């Protein structure tokens, strides 16, 4: 700022006579003097050399000797010096001053045409005229200089102001642009956080419900199961006793007993009762398994991160989905590889697997095959869940993780499944990559960093 505000252009630069006067300013005046009877009218520089001259002595280049000798005297005076040579030539000499400094001389001479008085008054008139010309030119030069300086300066200032304005405008524009981006980003984050919260809450209440139900069922199923086993033993005893009685000949009402035996279909009961009990035991066992799975899925007892086997959690998720898999008549193929334990919240990880698996199960209407592969790549666990469904069109691939984005009919899908899955995986520093081809199917590749126990705790 300081630098550009400096003006190098200075007012009132030093000027010589030739800087001020030009031929068209002087020549007419000199011509008038010569026409009025002077032999020679001349304007010289400060050394007495002619700058412009008019008259009958065209060869003269400088003041005549006598006048030349007098210039120092004229310089110190403000009056017109009068002189006459032995040849009868009379002359007048005056100093031309600019800002108090002598910058030239004005000379007029006559050899007889004019007398001394006439020459003096001619000189006086012409010299006054010349000074007026000079004065007016100088004024004009000053005014122009000042005007130029001020305009130049104002222009420079305007340029500077404009530059600063442009810069600040750019700054604010950038700020507003990034602001918009920031707001968008934050809004997105908030939206995600909100939906995650919502989902977690939902999951938590489902989990609590499941745990409650599981707990309530667990006790009765426990004594049902154990009683059934006891009952089986009892029935065995009954059967043995009945058979023993049947073999006895010496019974009073033999015939009556046989009839009743037949009527009550004891033979059939005896052959069916074991199946009955066996089926009940199986059923009770299945109920026990379902309850165990429910408990395992909800992880209601564990809200904290812990070590877990990804393969086991996948199995867990698949068994929770077993009903869905049966309904969709889908086939699950597992290619489990070896992977180190992952440190995280199994409830959340299972939720992510579940959402992606559900997506795969609905990837088309029949003959669904879902292939699940797990392996360890470097420090990452890589889980790929591939289906042979309809595939995701290129143009919507970037949107599938957006909250509330769904291709299902209104009311059928929440558009939250993949969003939640994505959020959970990113929460653990992982990511989900999608490879999909229309008509061939989609592959969701989940990468989870295996941070180890220690790192996991620091996270």
């Amino acid at each position, binding site marked *: 700022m300081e630098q550009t505000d*400096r003006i190098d252009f200075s007012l009132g630069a030093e000027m010589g006579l030739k800087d001020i006067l030009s031929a068209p300013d002087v020549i007419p005046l000199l011509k008038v003097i010569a026409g009025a009877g002077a032999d020679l009218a001349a304007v010289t520089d400060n050394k007495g050399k002619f700058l412009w001259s008019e008259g009958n002595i065209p060869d003269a280049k400088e003041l005549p000797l006598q006048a030349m000798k007098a210039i120092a005297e004229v310089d110190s005076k403000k009056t017109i010096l009068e002189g006459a040579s032995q040849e009868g030539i009379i002359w007048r000499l005056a100093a031309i001053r600019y*800002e108090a400094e002598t910058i030239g001389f004005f000379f007029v001479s006559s050899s007889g045409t004019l007398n001394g008085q006439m020459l003096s008054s001619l000189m006086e008139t012409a010299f006054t005229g010349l000074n007026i010309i000079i004065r007016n030119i100088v004024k004009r030069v000053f005014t122009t200089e*000042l005007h130029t300086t001020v305009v130049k300066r104002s222009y420079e200032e305007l340029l500077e102001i404009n530059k600063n304005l442009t810069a600040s405008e750019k700054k604010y524009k950038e700020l507003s642009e990034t602001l918009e981006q920031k707001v968008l980003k934050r809004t997105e984050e908030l939206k995600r956080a909100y939906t995650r919260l919502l989902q977690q809450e939902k999951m938590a209440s489902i989990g609590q419900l499941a745990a409650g139900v599981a707990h309530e069922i667990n006790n009765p199923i426990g004594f049902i199961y154990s009683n059934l086993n006891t009952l089986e033993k009892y029935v065995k005893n009954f059967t043995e006793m009945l058979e023993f009685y049947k073999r006895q000949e010496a019974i009073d009402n033999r015939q009556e007993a046989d009839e009743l035996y037949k009527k009550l279909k004891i033979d059939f009961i005896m052959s069916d009762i074991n199946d009955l009990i066996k089926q009940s035991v199986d059923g009770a066992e299945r109920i026990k398994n379902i309850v165990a799975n429910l408990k395992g899925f909800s992880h209601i007892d564990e809200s904290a991160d812990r070590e877990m086997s990804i393969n086991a959690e996948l199995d867990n998720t698949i068994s929770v989905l077993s009903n869905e898999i049966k309904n969709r008549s889908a086939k699950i193929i597992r290619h489990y590889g070896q992977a180190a334990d992952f440190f995280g919240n199994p409830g959340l990880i299972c939720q992510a697997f579940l959402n992606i698996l559900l997506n795969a199960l609905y990837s088309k209407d029949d003959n669904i095959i879902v292939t699940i592969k797990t392996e360890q790549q470097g420090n990452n666990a890589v889980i790929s869940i591939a289906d042979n469904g309809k595939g995701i069109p290129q143009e919507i691939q970037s949107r599938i993780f957006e909250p509330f984005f769904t291709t299902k009919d209104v009311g059928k899908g929440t558009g939250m499944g993949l969003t939640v899955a994505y959020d959970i995986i990113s929460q653990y520093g992982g990511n989900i990559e999608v490879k999909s081809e229309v008509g061939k199917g989609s592959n969701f590749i989940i990468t989870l960093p295996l941070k180890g126990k220690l790192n996991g705790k620091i996270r």
Partner: protein
Amino acid sequence: MIEYDEIENKMVLKLVYYGPAMSGKTTNLLRLHDILNIEGRGDLMTLDTKDDRTIFFDLLPFFFTAPSGLKIKVKVYTVPGQVRHDATRKAVLTRADGIAFIADSQISESANNVESFENLEKNLALVGINIEKIPLVIQFNKRDLKDIVSEDEIHRTWEPTGIPVFMASALYGQGVIETFKRLVELTYDYIDTRYSLKEKHMLSKEMFAGNLTKVNTELAGQ
């Protein structure tokens, strides 16, 4: 800031009369023109004015030769005091070698004096002149009027700054020469060390100031 032409053996100095509008800057120059001897002093050049208010500047030139042959030209400028002519003020102030600040003594003008002095400080900084170093004198003009700030108060205010203060009534020619003389002397001190005026050019401060403040004897005799 000084203009020094070695080939021409010439030095050009620029002194500026600064101050608020109507404080009497042009009057100061007019009186200098009247009082000082015609010898070595040029005519007062007044650029076009509007209603007697300076809109460009006035210029009073001086010219003399030091014993060494060094030609010295001193140009004394006024600036337009009106606030709106700030660009012109800056242009005139550029490369100044000394400043006389002409203040208006009237109590009613005190605020304008302050404003103008602040403007001077600002503009000096803008044209790259250090106000601490440049020769500066202050003149409180219009002492002949009523309702003026007392001399005691002025001295109390300005003494701590070390800036020479003069009382003047430029309209009657009082204090005008004193102000100018001190400015010229301070300017001599300011440039002497750098251009060795005394040693190289045998030009003492007295000669320097004397050349610029030769009072017209005819006038003095009246």
